[in-house]
């Protein structure tokens, strides 16, 4: 990938929450790129920081949390330097977000068409209502919402339709990046599968990039081009969806993939049982944060944090198994003695 294919660069991003028990780094010095027109899946278990990361990309972290470190470079500009007015314009026009529960994201006393007209006029005040309505109509039709549903209120729509309205709101200003935070999670499987199909179609048609944040690893296999796996505030592995699923490198990824149930008979009859549970981030484990649960932990893992390094072209992993350290050798010889 060359520079021109990169839409957004995240560099050393940290998000800290000030809590009574001290500061918690929900996202800890994370760096990665989002390419133009790709679907990037961000997977992890609850509390790993994936939603915090999604919000941080739009600088929407609310106190007591704040972005404590890093740069967010979008199309060559660091949006960390933007003031609130610039950010308002950036949100919606460049990046938009879809959340898990569309009912809480939509205004219950506003019709579908009013939502979209409002979004357009907020960012393009000169647009006439008729023009905005026309744009809304064309867009919603593409998403499979017929014209007669445009005057419906959110409670009159089904869950899947509400979520498609949210997608429409994200697209209407031609955003380049849509962040979908567990957008399909509250939907039934058939509706979820349909929305996943639509997200793919949208990417193909509009060329937008999608960051799909989810705990559903199978969905990522179905949908994403690349996958980032998060654990305890870090991205532990990043690579193409084929690379991650065919040849996972990080022990956490390996364990996670083997504990995902599959409906296929005669495949994966036994699920892998990973011991322990994700750590509490007020006191993250020393060294590699996964070491207390890792079947391949070495002495160095308990003392030193591995780097997030390129293991293969376009393949990153944060694990001592794949990198050297002067102490790694000495320690392992000590152990063997």
């Amino acid at each position, binding site marked *: 990938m060359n520079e021109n294919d990169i839409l957004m660069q995240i560099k050393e991003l940290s998000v800290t929450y000030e809590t009574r028990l001290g500061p918690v780094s929900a996202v800890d010095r994370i760096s990665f790129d989002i390419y133009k027109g790709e679907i990037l899946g961000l997977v992890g278990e*609850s509390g790993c920081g994936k939603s915090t990361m999604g919000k941080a990309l739009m600088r929407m972290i609310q106190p007591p949390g704040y972005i404590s470190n890093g740069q967010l470079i979008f199309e060559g500009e660091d949006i960390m330097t933007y003031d609130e007015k610039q950010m308002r314009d950036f949100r919606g026009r460049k990046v938009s977000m879809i959340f898990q529960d569309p009912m809480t994201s939509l205004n219950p006393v506003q019709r579908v068409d009013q939502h979209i007209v409002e979004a357009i006029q907020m960012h393009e005040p000169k647009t006439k209502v008729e023009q905005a309505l026309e744009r809304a109509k064309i867009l919603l039709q593409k998403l499979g919402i017929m014209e007669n549903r445009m005057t419906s209120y959110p409670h009159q729509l089904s869950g899947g339709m509400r979520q498609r309205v949210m997608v429409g709101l994200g697209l209407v200003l031609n955003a380049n990046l849509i962040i979908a935070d567990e957008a399909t999670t509250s939907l039934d*499987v*058939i509706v979820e599968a349909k929305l996943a199909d639509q997200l793919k179609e949208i990417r193909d048609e509009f060329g937008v990039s999608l960051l799909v944040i989810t705990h559903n690893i199978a969905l990522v*296999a179905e949908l994403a081009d690349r996958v980032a796996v998060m654990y305890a505030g870090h991205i532990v592995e990043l690579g193409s969806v084929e690379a991650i*699923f065919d040849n996972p490198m990080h022990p956490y990824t390996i364990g996670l993939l083997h504990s995902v*149930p599959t409906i296929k*008979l005669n495949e994966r009859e036994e*699920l892998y049982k*990973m011991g322990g*549970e994700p750590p509490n981030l007020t006191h993250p484990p020393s060294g590699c944060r996964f070491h207390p649960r890792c079947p391949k932990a070495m002495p160095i893992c308990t003392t030193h944090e591995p780097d997030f390094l390129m293991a293969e072209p376009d393949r990153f992993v944060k694990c001592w198994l794949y990198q050297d350290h002067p102490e790694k050798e000495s320690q392992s010889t000590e152990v063997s003695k």
Partner: protein
Amino acid sequence: MSATKENKSSEYLVEVKDMKKWFPVQKNFIDQVFARELEYVHAVDGVSFKIRKGEVLGLAGESGSGKTTIGRVTIGLEPKTSGDVYFDGIDLSTLSREELRKLRRRMQVIFQDPLASLNPRMSLGESIMQGLKIHYPETAPQHRDIAIETMEKVGLSPARFYFNKYPHQISGGQRQRVVIARALITKPDLVLADEPIAMADVSVRALLLDLMVQLKEEYNLTYLFITHDLATAKYICDNIAVLYLGKIAEIGNLRDVYSAPLHPYTQALMAAVPVPNPHDRRTTPMPEGEIPNPIHPPSGCRFHPRCPFAKPDCSKVEPELREIMPNHFVACHYAEDFK
């Protein structure tokens, strides 16, 4: 076959015949003034199934399919509108409140959200001992030991350490273990597990699922396992019933149903489950629409408005549940075509 109170040695632990559960829709003022007829949500609309002792029956379906209501009516948490429910040959509707209460120790429940099902002000040990206190007050001195033994069995080890903890002090996976221990302490025959692992993280899910399978052997349990996730069902259920809008669309041995789903709805549902393999992506399109309103369910076959294979008579004649293959029942007029 007439199962009465006397007919106790049935090979089936649970027999449900034509169960219906309708919920009246609250009337508004104007409807009351004009004395309009009550409308009903047809949550469960004629469901029959049997569970053999030691078997796991999965009830699968989307939200609004009636799976939770079936579970609640089966163990008598909710009165039925019509039909028969037998537990170990006993007709639940013939029992007095007191008799039903006594029978309850033989059927326990595990709900989805462990935090909501545990009293935040009760220590874990107290919560777990509640069942013993209610059903076996005479053995009070041994309750603590029984509780500790059960806690060790479900992996809350060391049990003495967890005994005096409170729900907020432990993780979600451990809380669900507490709920499982509480369910098992009265040595039940039937456990109704309503989405027991839906809230847990993937890495914890596999452990809980494995625990449930293991405990089933150890305690000779029979599970009624309610889930929206067909992939999870594969790891625990012997038989599976696929529900659509208060009716069974397909029921049979899980392996038979999964290897050859004969109802178009089961086919769609199975195709929709994402597969954790990027080389095996789904290419088939999904049916249109969502599960319809259960107040006025569609005529004929309830799935016909969304069915890609619907023919004219599907909207007129309601299909019966027919045995298409041995022990594999399907409610579709054209099920033979999908063999």
